[in-house]
């Protein structure tokens, strides 16, 4: 389980995360939603130890360190692979460093997405780069897979394929924390939704509870965010209002 206790993070005096408390048990697929700048990426980077922070983050009861860091993997739209390497060379590098690296999963996913093995990653399209980024995160042998906007730039068919494959290959003890703006698309795929706004967790709900209450995820997010449905029409009225 990932336990986040009283996590705060500031950038040059500006609060990016404020007293965040969150628990991510094994085997859950959790969607992390929030507007741009809400703190989603910062939260993930704090979990991964890429940023210093105040508070405590425990990974299966221990602070995140080099001893247990291999239990975490990360797929980001910024991409964390080496663009000059081929997928094969990248696999070799990761195999060398991550003892649980799954060669079988790597081969299966590379075949599924029909990605070339011997072309440098820099020559891949954005969609292919995203696919490879996610493949590497899934093959590392991590128990907790953090994904930050992994599908930015992929077409709809590609994304749908990915959700299906992901659901099919995940082991029961693998946890996914997925940050995305594609709320409707992932609503059938996640088991829990966490909402973050201005660095604070403002909502945390299981999809089962939502279903039972007869609400959908988009509705829940709009409600929690106090979304004003009339803001578009009001803005348009103001903009198109002719002066007399």
């Amino acid at each position, binding site marked *: 389980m990932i336990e986040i206790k009283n996590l705060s993070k500031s950038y040059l005096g500006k609060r990016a995360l404020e007293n965040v408390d969150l628990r991510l048990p094994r085997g859950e697929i959790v969607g992390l939603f929030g507007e741009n700048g809400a703190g989603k990426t910062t939260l993930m980077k704090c979990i991964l130890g890429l940023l210093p922070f105040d508070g405590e983050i425990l990974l299966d009861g221990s602070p995140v360190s080099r001893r247990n860091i291999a239990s975490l993997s*990360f797929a980001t739209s910024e991409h*964390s692979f080496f*663009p000059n390497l081929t997928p094969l060379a990248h696999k070799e590098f990761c195999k060398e460093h991550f003892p649980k690296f799954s060669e079988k999963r790597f081969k299966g996913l590379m075949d599924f997405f029909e990605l070339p093995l011997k072309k440098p990653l820099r020559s891949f399209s954005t969609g292919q780069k995203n696919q490879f980024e996610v493949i590497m995160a899934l093959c590392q042998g991590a128990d907790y897979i953090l994904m930050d906007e992994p599908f930015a730039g992929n077409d709809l068919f590609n994304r749908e394929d990915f959700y299906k494959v992901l659901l099919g290959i995940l082991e029961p003890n693998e946890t996914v924390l997925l940050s995305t703006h594609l709320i409707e698309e992932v609503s059938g795929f996640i088991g829990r939704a966490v909402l973050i706004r201005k660095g604070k967790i403002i909502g945390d709900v299981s999809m089962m509870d939502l279903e039972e209450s007869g609400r959908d995820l988009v509705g829940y997010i709009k409600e929690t965010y106090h979304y004003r449905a009339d803001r578009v029409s009001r803005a348009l009225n103001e903009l198109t209002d002719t002066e007399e």
Partner: protein
Amino acid sequence: MKHKIERYAPPGINIHLEIRYYFTGLLCAFLYSMLFLIRYSNSLSKLYGWVGNKRVILPDAVMDDFYLILDSCLLGFVIIAVAVLFLIVYHYMYHYQGSKSIYLMKRLPNSRELHFRCITLPLTGAVISMLLAVILLFAYYGIYIACTPKECLTPGQWQKLWSVLL
């Protein structure tokens, strides 16, 4: 894979090109250092004069000091040593180019891997360059002492060199 030079460099970097530039630099520094031999032979020939057909040492002829002849002949090696140290910065910055591979490097269970790959080769290059400079310094000093007529040498050449260097 284990013994390849790539193992000591950031993954995917064109290390062979860096090495080619490095050795070209070393060659240039070596050729420039050979200026010492030309300057030395000029100073040496000034010690001699001709009496008829016989080449003799001029009375009261004194050889130029070693450090004056050496001058900046070994500077090329120092410049290369400093330049390759800047490669360390480039190697770290490489992890931000085209992607954020720094995230992967920082997540590796081996915390030294990133630094090992960024520092090892430039540091080795700098050490080799400085070592060559020292070897050539001794070699040129040896030539200076061995080939200069004893009566033309002034004492304390080594001390003079260090007092100038330090």
